[in-house]
């Protein structure tokens, strides 16, 4: 064998033993792919705003009677929308309103589980903030679910009533049963109360929760639970941080959309941005309920700013015709007024409403409200809630929580495809059925 041949033989043997380098297979197949491990990865998941985190359920807007849809339009809607529109007790095959909040919960849980594995000495502040963000998102998602799929909260019976599954881990294989309604609300409160002190006063984006947003949401949750003391407390706390109102006299009435997108133009009332996951209100055959429309006084600017003369809605704080379902100062004034009215602080309640409504009426035309008694004050507040918080999904919550209050006996009625549908206060159909695709994989107790 000559030298060349020896060399070649050696080369052969070396090359046959190559490829034992295990690092070779550690290369990421896609650069944009990440296994979420760093704080900025966690932040990026929570910042998935448009598609997921700042999206809310919407069937409440379809059910609550604020808007009516012509038969032609309804024909083309998804089954779940049709069911919601006519308050059908039919179980829907699948419901985005069930799936999306749980997907938000999943993202929040992935972040919370991921954070638990991180050592966080270096950036404790950022760590805490992201953790608080995740808790807030989870609390909000659970709260939204409870408003759709559970009976209204009653202190006395909450322990016996069915709540929702409460996954608090990112393990998708855990099939959670329905917790009690009490436990569900407790989880919401736990998440929000833990988040509130850690949240920023002024986050970089309105799509991230702020301290004021957490307080505002807590005010809403306590109101729904009938805990008016705490609701008042948190509404006031939130207003301490942000109390600005838009003077509607400065809003052009001719615009096709009255309010700008709050994300890059300031909308001083918005505390937290959430867009309902529907283009329902954009549909050419959807119009505001004429009774609601006619309930605005002529000098009430909301009539022209929230609606077109053709009864189309244009007053969303989202900046498009999509419904705004976030948190804003105007709701806080209303919560505060209601809690005051319920605490028999009639004058204070009316004064609070005056602050809001002065910004809603044509300059100089507004006359301060006067209530004869606390009941009257409450009635005025509820009446104003309806007119102020259009397309927020809040009216559905109000209808549910006021069902047991004999002072209010709201009864919904609408005609669709020649059939008259009615929904009396306290009807079982105020609670949506859990979709069938959930039950197929997770045998939960169905709602009545």
């Amino acid at each position: 064998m000559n030298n060349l041949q020896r060399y070649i033989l050696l080369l052969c043997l070396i090359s046959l033993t190559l490829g034992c380098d295990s690092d070779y297979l550690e290369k990421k197949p896609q650069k944009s792919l990440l296994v979420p491990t760093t704080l900025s990865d966690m932040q990026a998941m929570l910042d998935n705003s448009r598609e997921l985190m700042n999206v809310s359920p919407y069937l409440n807007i379809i059910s609550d009677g604020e808007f009516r849809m012509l038969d032609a339009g309804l024909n083309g809607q998804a089954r779940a929308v049709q069911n919601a529109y006519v308050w059908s007790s039919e179980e829907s095959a699948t419901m985005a309103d069930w799936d999306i909040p749980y997907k938000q919960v999943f993202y929040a849980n992935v972040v919370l589980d991921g954070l638990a594995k991180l050592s966080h000495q270096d950036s404790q502040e950022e760590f805490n903030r992201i953790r608080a963000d995740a808790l807030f998102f989870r609390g909000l998602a659970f709260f939204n679910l409870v408003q759709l799929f559970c009976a209204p909260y009653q202190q006395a019976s909450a322990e016996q009533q069915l709540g929702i599954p409460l996954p608090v881990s990112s393990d998708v294989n855990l099939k959670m049963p329905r917790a009690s309604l009490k436990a569900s609300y407790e989880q919401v409160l736990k998440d929000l109360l833990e988040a509130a002190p850690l949240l920023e006063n002024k986050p970089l984006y309105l799509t991230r929760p702020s301290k004021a947003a957490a307080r505002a949401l807590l005010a809403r949750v306590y109101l729904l639970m009938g805990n008016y003391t705490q609701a008042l407390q948190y509404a006031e706390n939130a207003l301490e941080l942000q109390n600005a109102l838009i003077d509607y006299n400065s809003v052009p009435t001719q615009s096709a959309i009255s309010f700008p997108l709050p994300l890059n133009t300031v909308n001083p009332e918005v505390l937290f941005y959430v867009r309902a996951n529907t283009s329902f209100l954009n549909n050419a055959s959807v119009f505001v309920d004429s009774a609601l429309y006619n309930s605005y006084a002529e000098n009430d600017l909301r009539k022209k700013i929230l609606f077109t003369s053709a009864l189309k809605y244009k007053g969303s704080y989202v900046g498009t015709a999509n419904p705004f379902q976030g948190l804003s100062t105007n709701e806080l004034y209303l919560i505060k007024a209601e809690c005051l009215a319920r605490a028999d602080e009639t004058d204070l309640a009316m004064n609070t409403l005056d602050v809001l409504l002065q910004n809603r009426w044509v300059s100089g035309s507004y006359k301060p409200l006067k209530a004869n008694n606390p009941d009257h004050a409450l009635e005025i507040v509820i009446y104003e809630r309806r007119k102020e918080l259009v397309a927020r999904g809040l009216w559905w919550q109000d209808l549910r929580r006021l069902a047991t209050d004999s002072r209010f006996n709201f009864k919904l009625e609408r005609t669709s495809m020649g059939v008259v549908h009615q929904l009396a206060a306290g009807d079982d159909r105020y609670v949506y059925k859990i979709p069938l695709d959930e039950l197929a994989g997770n045998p939960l107790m169905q709602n009545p």
Partner: protein
Amino acid sequence: MKKVFIIFLLWMSAVFSTATAQYVVVGKVVTSPDSAALPGAVVVVKGDVTSGATSDENGIFKLSIPDSSADLLISYIGYKPRQVHVSFPIPSALIISLEADANQLGEVVISTGYQNIPKERATGSFSTVDNTLLSRRVSTDLISRLYDVVPGLISNQGRSNARGLLIRGQSTISSSTQPLIVIDNFPYEGDLSTINPNDVESVTILKDAAAASIWGSRAGNGVIVITTKKGASGTPTQISFNANVTTSQRPDLFYQPRISSSDFIDNEIRFFDLSRYKALENNINQYPFTPVVELMIAGRDGKISPQQAQQQIDALRDIDVRNDYSQYLYQPAAAQQYALSLRGGNDKQKFFLSAGYDRSQAAEVGNSDQRFTINVNNTYTLSKRLDISAGIYYTGTVSKRNAQQIPNYTNPLTGLTGGVMYPYAALADAAGSPLPLINEYRLSYLDAAVQKGFLDWSYRPLQELANADNTSRLTDYRLQTSINYKITEGLKFTGLYQYSRGINMGRNHYSADTYLSRSLINTFTAIDAGGILTRPIPTGGILDKTESSYSAQNLRTQLDYSRTIGAGELTALGGFELRELTRVGSTFRSYGYDDQYASAKAVDYATTFLYSVNPAISSRIPNVDTQYEHADRYLSYYLNAAYTFRKRYTLSASARTDRSNLFGVNANQRGVPLYSVGAAWQLSQESFYHAGWLPYLKLRGTFGYSGNSNKNVSAYTTASFGTRGDINTGAAFATIQNPPNPELRWERVKTINIGIDFETSRRTLSGSVEYFTKTGLDLIGSMPYPGSSGVKTFTGNYAATAGHGIDLTVNSRIFDRGFKWYSDFLLSQVTDKVTRYDVSSTSIFYLRNGDGVGTFPLEGKPLYAVYSLDWAGLDPSTGDPQGYLNGEVSKDYAALLAITPDELNYHGPARPSVFGALRNTFSWKSLSLSVNISYRLGYFYKDQSVSYSQVNTSVPTHGDYSRRWQKPGDELNTTVPSMPAVANSNRDSFYMYSDVLVRKGDHIRLQDVNLSYTINKSNWKKTPFQSAQIYVYASNLGIVWKAAKGSIDPDHAWSMFPPVRTVSAGIKFDI
């Protein structure tokens, strides 16, 4: 020394034989020219078929003859038979050399991409397409030359997901279905269109596990091994030239029946009278109206008299826009091809050089391609032991993609952009000048906008075509080097390295004159109270540049061992392979682009601007910039061995393990060990085998596993960053791709293959029959998860498929003298079904998408299948379609559609389950005619028909509109429902998905004809060429028979037009 001894022995025995006065001939059969022993050769005495002998493993035979002299006939498959006269005493050792016979079954060498093995010893399922068969078809691409000539291989047409090339059915659900393409030993990662078919010597298709498992985890769909031409030693340098031109028919745009313009106009008038446009006239979206609606409005508003309106409308009734499409947007496709090559060599060096140029013009006006290929390949023999070779394969293509979409507009009745254009549109006036059409907004609005200073907003499709400037340039090259070193006798080392890279640069320039640029600028233009315009998107053109590239590196080292052990021969190889594939891409847009100075202007991507038309809509300036970077790495070890005993029995085994950077999977699950075992028995070699009429008979079988990987799933929780910022905030955001799945595995395909190869004497009939089963295991599929888990479906190894089938090849030589008639028949049958898939959908998905529009697997059924609802005819009094609900005739369409999937009619697969071809080749002297007839059977498709939802929204519907039920009695002659008083989409759906529209797809097609005239030195001494040929080739000649009535091509029921006929003519010669 050994050789001398054997010869001595032979001579001795011959002498000895004579001495005993029994004439026993002892001889040796060897191959020519390398004088290797040829075992298994048959030796008989001429005129006496009862006695005969077979040569043993050393090629030696012993045969008694009745006389002292005789004529012996010696034959062996793949070799030219010889007649030898012997007479005693035999003066010297009788050594009979047989010369290999070209174009014979036995000569076929199978190239697996790792080794070349003679077909007799193969245990697996291979199909080889040699150069002659490859050259039969004229095309710029290679793969289409395999259609209808390879058993088991089919290019499915059909709809969306059901389309594409398959070898022996589909054994995966969501992973790639493409066979692995191997070019010169390595998987090819680039664009297949870069391969010049003139550079290809042969193609081998590996179909079963024995064949494919050596390719491991990507071989589950079969492997196509392409071998390019190489240099040849021992022959004079050969120059070859091939040139051809192809012309095609103009596409038939009237293939799909469509509602007449007049009927369409009648509906528009009806809708106008129903005030359906009234509210839209003031819609903020400024929806455009068709000319008829505008004329009706003008007539109503008194701008023109009703008579004038009527007159102008009637003038439109005879216009059919398809005439204009056909004239201005389509053309006969054409192609030219030139290929020049040089091959030669001597015992020190072999070379092959080639250059090819192709240009083609597509059927769509504005689209054309050019391809330039250069192939250089050299092999140097440095010593008896050492070979080194190096090659470069370069391809450059330039593709113009200026063709425009068929014009469309925003249909006001649906509010959707991209609506089908009204049928009476005209693209050009009588003089051929481009005419404007409506597009996004009403013409009156556009005129007013231009008055305010907006850019011209008119849309002229023909001008768009003229202004289009969209070109992509692809450069692809492969550098290959190999070293072959013979370590000792029987042991060889091979090292191979290949680097390949392809870069595709796209440049789509929308000049300032294009509608896209003008409209986008206008859309974002803001106008203030003083009438001052501001333009967030600067005036000028828009330039989109895309760049995508791949680079692949392959390294392989391999040891080959072959040795005679006892009465058998062992061949074995083992090696390891590294592969890395990187893909990088980006898209980049410039606004305000001025091509003259290549200058662009910056835009504000962060701010949201209001739309000028509908200020309710606001948006950021479209940012199409993206980038990606993907990397795949594989590390594989493989072993392959075969032992052939007495030339009759072969046992083979292969094993391979592939590991990849499958993300996040535990190290031990990154890889998949795959193996196969096989056996073959050459029955005709047995001493007890006496079927003289069938001199070659072989049985073989294999069993094994190959795989398929799917890199879209991962074991960890993975998220991916949005390539642009979040729409709400512009912040970086991530989407969770999949929840953790530590159990993730590779897909596997279990294959069993049993085959018989046969050949009758004189090769009158030869061929093979194979039966196979393919079982897809651990397939990636989805599993429904309850929404409360946070995921709706969970992707993992949850699905399975099972398939089986038959491949039959019969080659016959009906006449084989002066006039030759060869007939080649292929028949493949394949049945595949999904055996496990956990996600079920509602019936409507199977009805609507089951045939391939989506992938909705239903357990127990083929992956793509045709389902329907029972049809109970038209209601005689109303013309309503009727179905059966619980056995009763029903018109409750919602209920009819809501039946469960297992209640649906299942017709059969949406892809052919039986297919093949019959190729007849007739030749006489220099003239040869080859006709290929293909057939596809055992499948179903759905016909299109009228949709009243379309009618109701002024979308030009199907031509069945004119055959609709209109009065009682019509139901006897038609199945097309009446027009309903109120639009009902469920009624439409019921009709569309009822069995009245399901058709059998079975058909026979005259695929192509090749006629050639060849001259060569042997039949024309004076020719300066080794050979020269003139040929004419015609393809897509039409359907000969089909099961379904009507004019629709079953393979193209949903295409705008069927494949066009093409005719090519060319010459080729070798010097």
